[in-house]
């Protein structure tokens, strides 16, 4: 048991915190939201220079060989500033899929390009009908000329609009909801037959609906056996977004405390009201419990036993989801009217936490999964 950070981890946190303090003030972020990409290619290049894009990528592929704790610290810092760049899609989901499923050539080609900032990926797995069910894949892959051709559609693909390459799940066998028969494919996002409709999610981050019609695709990993990989990619996504929620909660808590100390009503700061003090204390309790669960998630992604790993990740998703909802709802409540306005930051954090809760299985979905396992 050890909660200390290494010197490298402290350095990482410091340098990222400095960068974001300079580049990601709330008003600067607002400008990025208005840009056509909805994020900053310039900062993306800076992340590459700082080594952030190679953080969890092995050194042999031009990365830093960092672990889940490093990613947790980075995502927490990203959460504090509501970073908009496609880090989750590319470096967490995309690189994890390539690392777990890719052959030597695919890894050797793609991972260094991710670390260098030249390639962006998107993880195109969930479909319109699938909601959170990970085995509900209808997109079909058929063999053609020694390769594969894809037919189907993917929904709410995170940063699917800007990705250079898509990692697409499709059925090579079995039927809807079967664990067997799902395979992963690499698709050139510019290939003929790929139609992408990009849009902003409710928090301003980008996503896309992607239609695939006769799209040539390269197999990534074993045919019919992709589900364990997909599960691990989703788990990595849960761990990373859990940390992001912690950062967002920290920011909301700080803003709320500041507001309670400065906002005057009835001739005194509203923070002198015990009802509000206790609510703030309850937010702190929720945040600390959530933080513990985000740590659990980070520590669990490398767990070898899949059942144990899935259980810990689900516990974390529920714990962080509930904490995030409680803290963000009360942050808006304690701000009163100003908390409802788009020009004020708290509502932007609120929306990020809301969007994250509805990724990769929401609180009810994971609680249900844990209820199945009660023994």
């Amino acid at each position, binding site marked *: 048991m050890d*909660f200390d950070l290494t010197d490298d981890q402290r350095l990482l946190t410091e340098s990222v915190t400095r960068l974001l303090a300079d580049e990601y003030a709330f008003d600067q972020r607002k400008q990025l939201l208005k840009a056509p990409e909805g994020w900053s290619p310039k900062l993306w290049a800076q992340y590459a220079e700082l080594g952030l894009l190679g953080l969890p990528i092995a050194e042999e592929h031009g990365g830093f060989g960092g672990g889940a704790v490093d990613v947790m610290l980075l995502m927490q810092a990203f959460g504090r500033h509501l970073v908009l760049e496609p880090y989750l899609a590319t470096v967490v989901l995309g690189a994890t899929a390539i690392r777990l499923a890719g052959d030597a050539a695919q890894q050797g080609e793609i991972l260094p390009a991710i670390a260098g900032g030249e390639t962006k990926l998107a993880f195109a797995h969930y479909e319109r009908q699938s909601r959170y069910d990970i085995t509900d894949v209808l997109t079909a892959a058929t063999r053609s000329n020694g390769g594969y051709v894809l037919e189907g559609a993917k929904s709410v693909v995170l940063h699917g609009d800007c990705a250079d390459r898509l990692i697409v799940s499709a059925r090579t066998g079995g039927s809807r909801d079967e664990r067997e028969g799902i395979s992963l494919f690499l698709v050139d996002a510019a290939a003929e037959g790929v139609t992408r409709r990009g849009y902003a999610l409710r928090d301003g981050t980008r996503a896309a609906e992607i239609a695939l019609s006769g799209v040539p695709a390269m197999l990534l990993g074993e045919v019919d056996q992709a589900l364990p990989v997909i599960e691990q990619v989703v788990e990595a996504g849960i761990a990373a977004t859990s940390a992001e929620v912690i950062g967002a909660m920290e920011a909301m808590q700080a803003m709320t*405390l500041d507001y309670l100390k400065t906002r005057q009503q009835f001739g005194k700061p509203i923070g002198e009201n015990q009802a509000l003090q206790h609510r703030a204390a309850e937010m*702190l*309790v929720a945040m600390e419990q959530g933080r*513990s669960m985000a740590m659990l998630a980070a*520590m669990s992604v490398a767990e070898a036993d899949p059942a144990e790993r899935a259980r810990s990740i689900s516990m974390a998703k529920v714990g962080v989801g509930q904490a995030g909802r409680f803290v963000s709802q009360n942050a808006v409540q304690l701000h009163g009217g100003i908390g409802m306005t788009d020009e004020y930051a708290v509502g932007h954090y609120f929306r990020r936490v809301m969007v994250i809760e509805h990724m990769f299985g929401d609180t009810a979905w994971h609680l249900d999964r844990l*209820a199945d*396992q009660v023994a």
Partner: protein
Amino acid sequence: MDLRYTPEEVAFRDEVRAFIRDNLPKDIRDRMRLGYPARKQDVVTWQRILNKRGWAAYSWPEEWGGPGWTSVQKMIFLEENLAAPAPEVSSFNITMLGPVLIQFGTEAQKRRYLPAAANLDEWWCQGFSEPGAGSDLASLKTRAVKEGDHYVINGQKIWTSTAHNADWCFVLVRTNPQAAKRQEGISFILVDMRTPGVEVRPIISIDGSHHLNEVFFTDVKVPVENLVGEENRGWSVAKYLLGNERTGIARLGRSKERVRFAKEVAREVRMNGKPLIEDRGFRTRVAQLEIDMKALEITQMRVVSAYDKSKDGRPDPLSSVLKIKGTELLQGTSELVMDVGGPQAMPAWTQELAALTNEPAVLPEWAPQMAPAYLMLRAASIYGGTNEIQKNILNKAVLGL
């Protein structure tokens, strides 16, 4: 960063677990498992077994018979003890009186009281709360007047747990009613419960048990050498006692053990034609409790690891988080257990028939303590600083409101 126990910590846990397994008398374990509160004799028996092993005074330095454990080791020991389930060592003796005497006591006081407290040869109780001094402890009125080589104490204490079992009581008294600040006229005094003028009256609590008492002091003469620390400086002694390391405050092992018990019984009882354990609502409720316990387990590890690293040995204000969530879980798990029992948990006949020896069992053995445990644990968010006071502490110490 690593949430797993180190090999040394695992070895320590296994050692503790094996010792408890091999040495906890079966009848005591059986009663604890069915949810009965530990009897006085059970506490004494178990604490003496632990003391023989050198573990009863688990938080004391080796010089005074403690094992010299780190905070992490103390946490592991306490959790294993609760999860066994075994009776808890007397908190009055071990976590309150002991550390206070080690910090403020004279050499003579340490030698006189510590060994007997560790071995539970003397049972201590805590005379702090008064009818007019609950959360606002500094408003206490019990008066001690120095007359020659004695203090003469008059007043009343209330909510005095186990006073009827106690040989001694550490009491907060007012020695200077004229002090500029009311915290400045308070002293910490040790009172022999057999002293003439000490009267204990039972308070029966909503669970039907006699655990709480009122204690009246009428012209009680206490030798001046029973004063701990300086006269009129008792508030800092009390603050030390209340703020002293709070490693065990979450009592998480108890909550975990109760969920296990609830699941066992849920296999026996039915809901809509099938075992309750298969009911969706029940399973979801258990899953939620297990999630909350996991979060608290990690939060506790974070807080306790920080104890060992803090230079001044002062408790992390985040230990208030442990108190709040820990007691919510004690209450939540006791509700779960009671709800599993359902109607069979409701009869109060066991108290009436307890004295009758040949009465055949009418209810399942798991039933009788379900409701009393639930009822008694409503106190968990009241004692040790109410959960609202804990939130005040967080506001002051962490949030700066």
